[in-house]
């Protein structure tokens, strides 16, 4: 059963490589017999897919729809569990700055202006520091990342995998061609508590948006998932298609 599914994955790899941009892989190539389930091998029975309909002309909506589809696709049971570190840092810093601002404003409202000046100044500076920190974190540390996932499987030993996906919409050179969705994956497989590296893969792929969205803006989710799944499996195999 597993072999036929892998063959199907291999052929979809060949299909998707004709559309992909550039791909590169890094050694060492992981041992194929050791390879845990890839996303294409895990078929979930026809679950209630909600129809995703977006505004075709709005690039942000298109990208967000694709990002959400990736997150849903890779967070299914048996697949990766999403790590929310980036989101939590942004949420923490953001809400802290909101509370600092609210407290400072309330204090300034209750106490006379002259007496409240030192405290309000301190609160203001604290707010500015938190906001700058949050912005710098989102720009430099988080960057384009949309999904960070982790999985632990047990075949002969406990294998830990970590996958990071980032996506962007690069500017199109020609006005007439369709903008494309560019995704970049980084995959690491290790064991022994992260000390022994089993394999690593890095993949990039790009596809035009009109491959997944029809004229009305309805998203073709199975086709999108097949494309992303192919990329993930390529990264898991650690070799260029």
């Amino acid at each position, binding site marked *: 059963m597993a072999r036929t599914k892998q063959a199907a994955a291999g052929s979809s790899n060949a299909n998707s490589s004709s559309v992909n941009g550039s791909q590169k892989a890094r050694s060492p190539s992981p041992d194929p017999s050791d390879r845990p389930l890839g996303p294409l091998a895990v078929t979930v029975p026809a679950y209630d897919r*909600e129809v995703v309909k977006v505004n075709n002309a709005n690039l942000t909506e298109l990208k967000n729809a694709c990002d959400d589809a990736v997150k849903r696709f890779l967070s299914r049971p048996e697949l990766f569990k999403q790590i929310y570190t980036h*989101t939590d840092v942004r949420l923490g810093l953001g809400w802290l700055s909101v509370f600092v601002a609210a407290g400072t404003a309330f204090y300034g409202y209750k106490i006379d202006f*002259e007496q409240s000046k030192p405290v309000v100044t301190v609160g203001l500076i604290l707010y500015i520091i938190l906001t700058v920190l949050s912005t710098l974190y989102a720009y430099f540390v988080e960057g384009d990342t949309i999904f960070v996932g982790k999985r632990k499987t047990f075949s002969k030993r406990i294998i830990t995998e970590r996958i990071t996906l980032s996506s962007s919409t690069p500017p199109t050179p020609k006005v007439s061609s369709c903008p494309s969705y560019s995704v970049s994956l980084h995959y690491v497989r290790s064991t022994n508590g992260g000390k022994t590296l089993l394999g690593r893969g890095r993949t990039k792929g790009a596809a035009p948006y009109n491959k997944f969205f029809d004229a009305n803006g309805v998203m073709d989710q199975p086709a999108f998932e097949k494309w992303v799944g192919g990329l993930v499996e390529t990264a898991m195999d650690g070799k260029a298609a």
Partner: protein
Amino acid sequence: MFTEELKAFRRLGFRHVLLQVLNFASVIASGLMIWKGLGIVTNSESPIVVVLSGSMEPAFYRGDLLFLTNPSSEQYKTGDITVYKIPGAEIPIVHRVMETHDVPKSIDIRKYTKSKSKSKPQPGEDSKQDNQLLLTKGDNNYVDDIELYQGLEWLEKKHIVGKVRGFLPYVGYVTIAMNDCPQLKYALLGGLGLLALIQRE
């Protein structure tokens, strides 16, 4: 329209809802902080005010927006346009300074103000700079402001909110409209909030 949004929220999870609310809350927080920061930088309680009456025509008309500063080393001169607030009066008044008398630090100013309060002077007030006694009058009024002082003979520097540095005509009518008709205020805030909650960056 709402059912779609609610479905989207349930699908995307709790963190997403928190993020969207954070978007909205941080817009409000940054507005508050900009206002407070402006107050600190200009050393004025309310650095932007709206003209409510016509007592300063033809210089300022009702609905003009005024920008104030109040540097602590400022000695006001005849001809300055100041905004002041009498303790006990709700609304600040914008009028022109007619007379000033400088009171050096060594003299206790309360001898001249006939102020009703028996309290000692607060620390931090009048300690570094010379205080001043001021008399004001609106350009479009026939009499000076003694009637408005509620028993005081002179204004002191602590009553002054700031001196007018610049103005924008007509912009203040938005505030006047929102004060006269509170539903407009809530409608505007509600609309902005809805927009911030629904959009994703």
